């Protein structure tokens, strides 16, 4: 394939995005972009994906009217139940899509990064189901705090490769996956787990996750006869947020993107005490895109922090950086405490244990109900089984 960067559409979102990668990776990314463009127009591809989403992933997920939470907050709250997707999080929407793309490109091996382990699990599922050799890069620190997910991946035949460089968390796992891909791209697909990184990942991942917003739009219209006043979603790299926001961008709906406030804004030179790249970050290049990142004045990437491993990332997708700058999306924060409060409240009030990542969206909604309007959808991006040990430790510390 002989494609040029100019030919690929949608590379930039305002000044954000792009393709800031070593030359060896330029061609594999352009080939992926071109292959994806072709598949977007293929009915057969969409039929196959739809079938897997329905019969394997369990879509559509319910849009559930949370009666008790609504009473508590004095407004109507609906929950988009991505926690019910096979694997326990929205991540499978994307891995199924990219898995099919990789299959059609003739790749035989998948690599992926994972932080919380949810994307690693979703990749392992697809690897097993669609028949790929699968290797997952995971920081040593994350392996320690997400042991169950490591075992789940291994059960499904994926190999988990510990990453010992840098801060030994998600960002370093992405670095390692990119290094791997630079020498294996001929037979390997890099299955990036969020709407961040170099083109075409931000738009491709958003598209595959847009099934969340498409369903929610239909469901809320049926249930309420109108669109919601607001939608709340947590933001790590931005895939569940962009997925539910994208179909509403042209509507009069307040889009609230909740980042990890962690322990607060206080940062030393080396460590950001949060994962709030939109809130506290500045323009810079990380993992192939110009976006908002947490960095020191010299441009060294800071170690982020959040009680939720899936939000513990010092960057954010370029489209969210752009939408935040134009004012279409409102970046907000929930700190660890607020998230834990959301985690407990949803468990107690509705009998739904959310992922700690999703608990940031819930905690935020509970602490700022006036920002929501009368009718709100909260994206429950995943379920919380993986987080029980973390929450127990948190309560005891």
């Amino acid at each position: 394939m002989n494609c040029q960067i100019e030919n690929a559409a949608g590379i930039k979102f305002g000044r954000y995005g792009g393709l800031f990668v070593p030359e060896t990776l330029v061609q594999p990314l352009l080939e992926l972009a071109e292959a994806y463009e072709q598949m977007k127009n293929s009915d057969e591809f969409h039929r196959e994906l739809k079938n897997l989403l329905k019969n394997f992933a369990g879509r559509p997920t319910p849009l559930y009217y949370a009666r008790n939470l609504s009473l508590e907050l004095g407004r109507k709250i609906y929950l988009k139940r991505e926690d019910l997707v096979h694997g326990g999080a929205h991540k499978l929407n994307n891995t199924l899509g990219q898995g099919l793309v990789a299959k059609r490109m003739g790749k035989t091996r998948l690599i992926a990064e994972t932080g919380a382990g949810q994307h690693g699990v979703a990749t392992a599922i697809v690897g097993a189901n669609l028949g790929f050799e699968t290797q997952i890069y995971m920081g040593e620190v994350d392996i320690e705090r997400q042991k169950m997910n490591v075992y789940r991946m291994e059960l499904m035949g994926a190999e988990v490769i510990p990453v010992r460089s840098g801060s030994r968390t998600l960002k370093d796992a992405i670095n390692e996956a990119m290094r791997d891909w630079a020498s294996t791209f001929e037979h390997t697909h890099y299955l990036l787990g969020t709407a961040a990184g170099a083109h075409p990942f931000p738009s491709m991942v958003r598209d595959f996750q847009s099934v969340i917003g498409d369903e929610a739009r239909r469901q809320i219209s049926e249930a309420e006869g109108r669109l919601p006043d607001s939608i709340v979603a947590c933001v790590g790299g931005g895939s569940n947020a962009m997925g539910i926001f994208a179909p509403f961008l042209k509507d009069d709906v307040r889009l609230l993107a909740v980042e990890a406030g962690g322990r607060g804004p206080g940062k030393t030179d080396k460590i950001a005490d949060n994962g709030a790249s939109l809130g506290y970050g500045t323009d810079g290049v990380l993992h192939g895109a110009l976006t908002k990142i947490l960095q020191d004045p010299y441009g060294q990437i800071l170690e982020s922090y959040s009680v939720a491993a899936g939000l513990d990332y010092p960057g954010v997708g370029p489209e969210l950086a752009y939408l935040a700058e134009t004012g279409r999306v409102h970046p907000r924060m929930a700190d660890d405490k607020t998230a834990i409060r959301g985690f407990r409240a949803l468990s107690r009030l509705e009998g739904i244990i959310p992922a700690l990542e999703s608990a940031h969206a819930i905690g935020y909604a509970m602490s700022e109900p006036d920002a929501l309007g009368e009718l709100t959808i909260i994206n429950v991006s995943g379920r919380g089984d993986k987080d029980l040990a973390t929450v127990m430790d948190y309560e005891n510390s």
Partner: protein
Amino acid sequence: MRILEAFSHSPLLIVYICSGDPSPKATPDLVRRLARAGADIIELGLPHSDPIADGPTIQAAAQRAIAAGMNTDVYFDVASVAGDAVPLVFMGYYNMVYARGLDRFAKDCKDSGISGMIVPDLPPEEASPLKDACVRHGVDLIFLAAPNTPPARLKMISEETSGFLYLVARKGVTGARSDVLQDTRDLIARVPEGVPKAVGFGISTPEQAADVIRAGADAAIVGSACVDLIAKGEIERLERLVKDMKEAIARAKGKAPIVC
């Protein structure tokens, strides 16, 4: 200009070291010793927290250098005192350049005696703002091409680069390897006439360096092998390696080595 001039005396040996490893104080002396041993151009790496184009050897060097206090201000101080025996070239990731401001970075290069910049995660399509700054301050912006760069793109990169064209010897990241691939020879042969070509990534022995020169390169770039010796504190072996490489490439081009 200094870089092009150097290439008029090819074959050249280009040596990469990570500035600040093992300490910022040690770097200027290392630069001088490498120049005396036969390095024609020295690539001075600015360590980054997230070096995605580098293998374990240079990653570790970057971590040591950052821990030893290297940052962009110190980097330019070090470059200024390293002397001008041979041309210096900046090598570092785009975010470090972006964070300082493109114009300021290019000016600091010029003012501290750095003749060119290599930014491995900045393809030409994203580079025009930095290119403008480099032109303003008379600094060469050196682009990279790889074995999987298709013909039309290779032509474009060859036209955009200034100083020389950096040919990535193989897919993947930096780090010592034991052979030179046919892919690399093909890439060297594919570059349009008249563009100075330096080959790097994976070259660690005099034989490999000689091999790429015989295949038509104007310069061989050695990085991880030198960084590894610096990590072990074996500076005399480092000087020996550089001398041997210099001799090997001179022989490969059928020239007597000029060692001073």
